[in-house]
C-alpha cells in the first residue's frame, strides 16, 4: 500500500465526482420543467407568465446554460454547492443536516444485518444440511424476493396500525428523546437490513464451507486445535474476506434502498429532499445531494479495498 496509490485513488475519486456532477447538471437542465414555474404552480396554482419570469430572473435561471454551468463549477471549486432555488437554504447545510441521518440508518441496518447474517451463516455452514440450515436458506430466499418497500409497509401495518406497539414513522433528534429516537429508527433499520442480512448469510455460509474444506483446516485439527480455535483462527479469517467485499459492494445498493425506506417510514434523511428537489427541478439541491452520494459511494469502495488489504496480506496495492 503506497501513498502514491492512495493519492491516485483520491484524484480519481474527485474526477469521477466532477463527471457525475456535470452529467446530473446537464441532464436536469435538459428534461422539461421550469423550477420557477413549478414552485409557483404548487397545489394547482396557475401563475401568470410575468410573475414566473420575475422569479426566473431572481433565481438566475434566465442566463444561458453554459453561464449557469460555469457559475456552478466556480462554486464547486470553492466548495460551495449553492442554495436551494425553492427557499434559498444552503445545499451544504441541508446535506449536513440530513446525511448523518441517512448514514445512521445505513449503519444501523448494516449492524443488524451483520449480527444476524454472519453468525447464522457460520452456524448453517458448520451444521450443514441440518434443520436450521434448510429453514434459514428458505427464509433468505424469501427475504431477497420481497421488495424492501413491501416489507416496510407490512411492518407499519402490523406493528403501528394494528398492534400500536411502534410509531408509524417519523423522526425525533436523539438529543431530544433518545428512547423515542431509537424506537423510530428500529423499523426502517430492520427494513434496510433484510436484504443485506440475506446476502451476508449466503456469502458467509458459502465462504465458511469453502474454508472448512481446505487442507489447513484438516492440518489444524490433526494438530489437536480445539474446534472453536479452528473455526475462529483458521476458518473465519479466510472466510471473512469475501464477506467484507460483498459488504462493500452492497453499500451502493443500500444507499439506493434507503430512498424507498426513508419514504415509507418518513425518516428525514437525504432521500426526501432529493425527491422533492427532482420534482421541483431544484438544480443545486439535486446536484449537491447526488454528488454527496456518489463521493460517499466512491469512498466506501476505497475503504473496502483498504480493509481487504488489511485482512488479506496477499492483496497488494502499488
Amino acid at each position, binding site marked *: 500500500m503506497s501513498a502514491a496509490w492512495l493519492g491516485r485513488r483520491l484524484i480519481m475519486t474527485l474526477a469521477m465526482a466532477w463527471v457525475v456532477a456535470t452529467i446530473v447538471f446537464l441532464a436536469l437542465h435538459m*428534461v*422539461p*420543467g*421550469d423550477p420557477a*414555474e*413549478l*414552485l*409557483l*404552480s*404548487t*397545489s*394547482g*396554482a*396557475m*401563475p*401568470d*407568465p*410575468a*410573475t414566473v419570469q*420575475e*422569479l426566473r430572473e*431572481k*433565481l438566475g435561471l434566465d442566463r444561458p446554460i453554459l453561464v449557469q454551468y460555469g457559475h456552478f463549477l466556480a462554486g464547486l471549486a470553492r466548495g460551495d454547492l449553492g*442554495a436551494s*432555488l*425553492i*427557499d*434559498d*437554504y444552503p445545499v451544504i*447545510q441541508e446535506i449536513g*443536516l*440530513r446525511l448523518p441521518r441517512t448514514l445512521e440508518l445505513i449503519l444501523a441496518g448494516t449492524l443488524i444485518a451483520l449480527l444476524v447474517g454472519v453468525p447464522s451463516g457460520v452456524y448453517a455452514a458448520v451444521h450443514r444440511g441440518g434443520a436450521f440450515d434448510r429453514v434459514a436458506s428458505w427464509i433468505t430466499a424469501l427475504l431477497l424476493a420481497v421488495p424492501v418497500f413491501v416489507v416496510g*409497509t407490512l411492518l*407499519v*401495518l402490523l406493528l*403501528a*396500525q394494528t398492534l*400500536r406497539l*411502534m*410509531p*408509524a*414513522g*417519523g*423522526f*425525533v*433528534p436523539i438529543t*431530544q*428523546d433518545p428512547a*423515542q429516537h431509537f424506537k423510530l429508527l428500529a423499523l426502517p433499520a430492520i427494513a434496510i437490513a433484510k436484504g443485506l442480512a440475506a446476502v451476508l448469510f449466503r456469502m458467509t455460509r458459502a465462504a465458511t464451507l469453502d474454508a472448512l474444506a481446505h487442507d489447513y483446516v484438516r492440518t489444524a485439527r490433526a494438530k489437536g486445535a480445539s474446534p472453536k480455535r479452528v473455526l475462529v483462527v483458521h476458518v473465519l479469517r479466510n472466510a471473512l474476506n469475501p464477506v467484507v467485499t460483498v459488504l462493500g459492494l452492497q453499500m451502493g445498493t443500500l444507499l439506493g434502498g434507503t430512498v424507498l425506506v426513508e*419514504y*415509507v*417510514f*418518513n425518516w*428525514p434523511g437525504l432521500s*426526501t*429532499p432529493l425527491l*422533492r428537489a427532482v*420534482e*421541483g*427541478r431544484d438544480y443545486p439541491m439535486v446536484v449537491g445531494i447526488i454528488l454527496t452520494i456518489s463521493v460517499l459511494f466512491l469512498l466506501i469502495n476505497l475503504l473496502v479495498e483498504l480493509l481487504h488489504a488489511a485482512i488479506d496480506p496477499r492483496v497488494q496495492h502499488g
Partner: protein
Amino acid sequence: MTISRRSVLGAGLAGPLLASPFLIRPASAQRAAGIIRYGLSAFPPNLQPWVSTGASAGTVKMLINRSLVSYDSKGELRGELAESWSRDAEGAWVFKLRKGCVFHNGEPVTADDVKWSIEQIAGEKSTAYMRTQFQLIEKIEISDPQTVRLVTKGPQATLPSWFANYNTFIIWRKSNPNEPIGAGPFRLVGQERGTSVELAAFDKFYKPGIPKAKGIKFIVYADENLRNAALISGDVDMIEYVPWQSMAAVEADPRLKLDNQEGPFMDVLFNGSKPPFNDPRVRRAVAHAVKREDIVKVAFFGRGKPLEGVPIVEGTPWYDKELAHGWNYDPAKAKALLTEAGHANGFQTTLLATAQFGMHKDTAEIVQQYLAAIGIQAELQLPDWSTRVSRGTRGQYDMAIHGVSSDNNDPDGLTVVLDTSLSPTHGRSFKVEAPRTVAALAKGRAEFDQAKRVEIYKEMQRAALEEVPMVGLAWRQQGYGMDKSVQGFTNLPGALSTSSGNQLEETYFG
C-alpha cells in the same frame, strides 16, 4: 422592500426549541398541554406571505398571519384586521380597520401597514400570487390611521375576497425581508426542516379566547398511507387529505371521525390551437362521451360526484340543475357531433396526464376507454408532474387531464379555469376560443347586484356548455380525519376546503 428567497423557514428563524413546550412527550402529555399534532401532506416550500407555494404552506401561513378578512366556518367572508368594508359613492372600496390588533412584535396594525403590503404585492418586481389582481388597484388612500380606501381600475365586485386568499397577508411594514412579521393567532416557534413546524399561541391576538389550542405541531407525512397510519396509530391527532381508499376505515373507527367536503374537481383540457380540438363540436363530443360514475368509482373509491357541466357547487345561488347536467353521458350524441364535425370514423390523438398522482392516471385511463367507444383513439402520455406542468403551459399536448379547485365559491373564482383568454398555464385549455364565456365572466366581475349576477353566471354556464373551454368530469371529496376528542374544526365548503387550515384557531381538545 422585496422579500428575498430566503424564507422564514430558513436560517432566520431561531426556534428556541429547548425552551418550548414541544419536547416530545407521550401523546397524553401533548394533549394535556393543549398541543394539536397535525399530519401535514407536504413540508411548506417556504412561508413567504405573498408567494403561492401551495395549500400546506397556506395552512401554516393562515395561522401565523392575518389579512383584512377571512372565511368563517360557513365559508362566508368575515372581518379580521378590518371590522367592516363597503363601497363609497365613487365606487371605491373602503376598509375600516379594527382597533387593538397587533403584530407579533407588539406593534399596532395600521393603515400604513395595509398600504405597504398591497404595494409589495402589486409591485413591478413582485412574485406574489395576487399580483395581477392587485395591479388593478389604482390608488390607496389613508384618510385616518384606521381607514384604507382602495380606488380600482373599473368596478371590482369581488375585491374583498381577494384579501381572504392565503397569499394576501398584512405584514408589518418595517419587517426584515427574511422575517416577515404577521399578526396571526399563532407564532412560529420552531421547525425541524422537512419534518415539522411548530406554532405557539400568540397571547396578544385580538379575538378573545382565540386561539383555543396552546400550540400546533405540524408533522409532515408526504405518503398518504403513512399519514393515515399515523392517525390510526395515534401518532397525530388529525390529518389532512385522508386517502379516499381509507375514508371508510376512518369512519368506522370508534376513536376517529371524518369531515368531508366536495371541492376540487377533475376536468379535461384541450389544445385549441390546431385541429381537431379547435372545433367546439369535437370538444362537446368529448363532453358527452364519458360516463362519469366510473371515474368516481375507480379513481375516488366512490368519494365524489359526477360533474356533467361547469363546476358550480350545488346549493349555491348560481347552481342550475338543468345546466349542471348539460354534458350528460350520451354516446349517440357524441358520435353525431363527431360526424357533424367531419370525423365520422373518429381520429387518433393523445391524452396527457401524469403517473405521479394516481387520481390523474386513473381518470385518464377511464376517459381513454370512453373516447375509444366513440372512435377517438387517444394515446396516453403519463410523464412526471413537472413535465406535465411544463408541457401544459407550452401547449405541447392535444388533450390533458387535470385536477383543480376554484379560487373560491363565487363563480368568479372559476375564471382561472374557464377564462381561456388569460395567459397559458398547465391548468387551463391552451388557446381555446370561448369569447362568450370570457365576456360573461368579465361582466359578472363588474356587477354588484346579486340578482343580476346570478343571471349573468347562468348565461356564462350556457355559453361554456357550447364553447367548451374545459370538460368537467368529477367532484372529489377532501377529507380531514381526526381523533373524536378534537373539537371546533370545520372543513370549509366547496372550493374553500383547502383554506380550512384557518379553522385550526378554533380547534381544541374537548
